[in-house]
């Protein structure tokens, strides 16, 4: 009865003697062996029938004989000891059987005969569940990290949007202030011109009086000379006109800056229109130069006062971003040159700087949103990707070339569009 029981057990039973020769195999083993091996396995060396893990099996069986103590092996460390097949319950496909093995010392019929019994368990189901679960877990983990990254990007995009919003309202504010400043500047300028006249006349008056006294009344002339001395008349006369001139000049500069600010801040005219690229670029350089003072700026345009038909807001945006990058690339000394050229077909705007440059590895990524090498909080890595989108809108392209340590050239190329072709290019205008 026990023989039948052992034969039918759902685990593999294999008994070997101290010479590793097979003494018994149950049906679990026999069913999975070649027919020719099935019938005359008795007294065959175990490893001649199962050579796959010969070294391992021999060592483990030896340990059992020497120590008279069970030995264990798990599928996690050694999945397949005997070359049996099993079906994977998840996919249903046949695979190598995953096995747990235990070898226990037993004694033979004559109790001094030492035997070792290999008990083999098919744990394919368990193993494949576990592996599927692990795969799932690692997929989940990957997804999780990807999501974390996305969330971080979203966060930074949001703060960028807030920043943009702020900039927009700062722009509005600047426009408002510019307008307010313009009025007083107007009358201060006018008044100053009048004051200049008045002061000249006053000086003339004094000089005329002094001259006359010199001739008519030497005593009064003496008095007038003394009084003039007391009030430092000569100094006043010398100083007054350069002072007024300097003030006029200062006022002119203030008016220029306000004018530029207004031009940019009041840029509400989205949509396609003719636009003076040369002049705008010069204004832009003034604005950027006010903030980044290290480089020397130079603008050249051929033909001068080039007008192009485009969407000014986005072109300005692109140019600003590229210009700021160039300016930021110069740490203490250097130049930023903007070279505009137009042919009948296309316009090229080259922004050339003598700054730190971009490594070959980074240059592939500079147009990617959020790619930045600037310290946290300094750059969002959006400048060039925004520029890229803007230029793409104009069916143009941006090319960057750099020589690390020497400088960078970023070139915008846009096709020339004529106003009558407007409907063919980019999006239709809202409302028109």
């Amino acid at each position, binding site marked *: 009865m026990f023989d039948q029981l052992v034969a039918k057990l759902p685990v593999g039973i294999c008994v070997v003697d101290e010479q590793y020769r097979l003494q018994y195999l149950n049906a679990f083993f026999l069913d999975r062996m070649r027919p020719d091996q099935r019938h005359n396995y008795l007294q065959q060396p175990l490893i001649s029938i199962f050579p796959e893990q010969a070294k391992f099996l021999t060592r483990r069986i030896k340990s059992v004989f020497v120590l008279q*103590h069970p030995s264990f092996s798990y599928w996690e460390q050694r999945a397949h000891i005997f070359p049996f097949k099993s079906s994977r319950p998840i996919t249903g496909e046949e695979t190598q059987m995953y096995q747990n093995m235990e070898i226990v010392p037993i004694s033979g019929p004559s109790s001094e005969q030492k035997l070792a019994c290999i008990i083999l368990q098919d744990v394919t189901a368990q193993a494949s569940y576990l592996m599927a679960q692990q795969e799932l877990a690692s997929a989940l983990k990957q997804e999780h990290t990807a999501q974390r990254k996305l969330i971080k990007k979203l966060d930074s995009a949001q703060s960028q949007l807030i920043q943009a919003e702020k900039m927009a309202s700062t722009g509005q504010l600047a426009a408002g202030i510019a307008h307010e400043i313009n009025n007083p500047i107007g009358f201060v300028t006018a008044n100053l011109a009048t004051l200049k006249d008045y002061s000249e006349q006053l000086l003339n008056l004094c000089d005329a009086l002094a001259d006359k006294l010199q001739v008519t009344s030497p005593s009064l002339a003496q008095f007038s000379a003394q009084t003039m001395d007391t009030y430092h008349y000569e100094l006043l006369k010398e100083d007054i006109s350069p002072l007024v001139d300097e003030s006029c000049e200062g006022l002119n500069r203030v008016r220029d800056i306000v004018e530029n600010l207004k031009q940019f801040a009041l840029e509400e005219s989205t949509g396609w229109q003719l636009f003076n690229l040369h002049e705008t670029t010069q204004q832009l350089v003034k604005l950027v130069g006010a903030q980044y003072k290290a480089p020397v700026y130079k603008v050249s345009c051929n033909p001068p006062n080039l007008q192009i038909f485009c969407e000014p807001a986005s072109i300005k945006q692109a140019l600003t971003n590229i210009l700021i990058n160039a300016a930021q690339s110069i740490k203490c000394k250097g130049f930023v040159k903007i070279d505009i050229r137009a042919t009948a077909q296309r316009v090229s705007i080259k922004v050339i700087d003598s700054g730190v440059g971009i490594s070959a590895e980074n240059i592939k990524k500079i147009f990617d949103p959020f790619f930045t090498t600037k310290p946290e909080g300094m750059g969002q890595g959006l400048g060039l990707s925004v520029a890229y989108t803007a230029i793409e809108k104009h069916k143009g392209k941006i090319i960057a070339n750099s020589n690390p340590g020497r400088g960078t050239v970023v070139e915008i190329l846009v096709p020339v569009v004529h106003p009558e072709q407007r409907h063919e290019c980019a999006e239709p205008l809202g409302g028109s």
Partner: protein
Amino acid sequence: MSTESVLTADQRDALQELMNISMGQAANSLAHLIETKIGISIPKIASVTPEQLFSMISEQADAYYTRQSFLGDIQGEVMSVVSQQGLCEVGALLEYDAPLSQTDIQEIILELSNILAGACLAGLSAQLALGTNLNMPTLFSPRKANFEEFQWSNSLVMEVQFDIEISSFSMRVVFCLDDASLDRLTQTLDELLG
């Protein structure tokens, strides 16, 4: 750590002696198997709280851990602390090809724990004429948390350290007994003491 509360001096001495003999046998079997000299420390016997057990187990940096329960006349758990140092040499003794893969290392640790814990337990059971069966070992990493969740407040532990002469490898085996088994053990010791 003290033993007074659980064992009398006589019981303690007797157990110490039995441990010496059985651990020596264990070391001999292992030495025979891997054909290398093996040194053993004098077994330590103590009564510990879970926290003490935790610090005992985890005082060694760079170690692998396994545990394995045993059932029978006395029941409990064996924990093995296997040094990471010198494991390669041991792998070579066990006929593993260098370099060892992660699964090779796991297999070696499990096998070593099984061999030593098994040999120790077998020796001790034989000396005490008690029957025990060791279950398969599993890898684990001790965390304070799982020790704090232990259901007992005091347990008898027996600890022994094995060193392999040719390398810096060492391994500690810690036996823990539950209360019922402790009674059984003291009873048996008393019988032996007559």
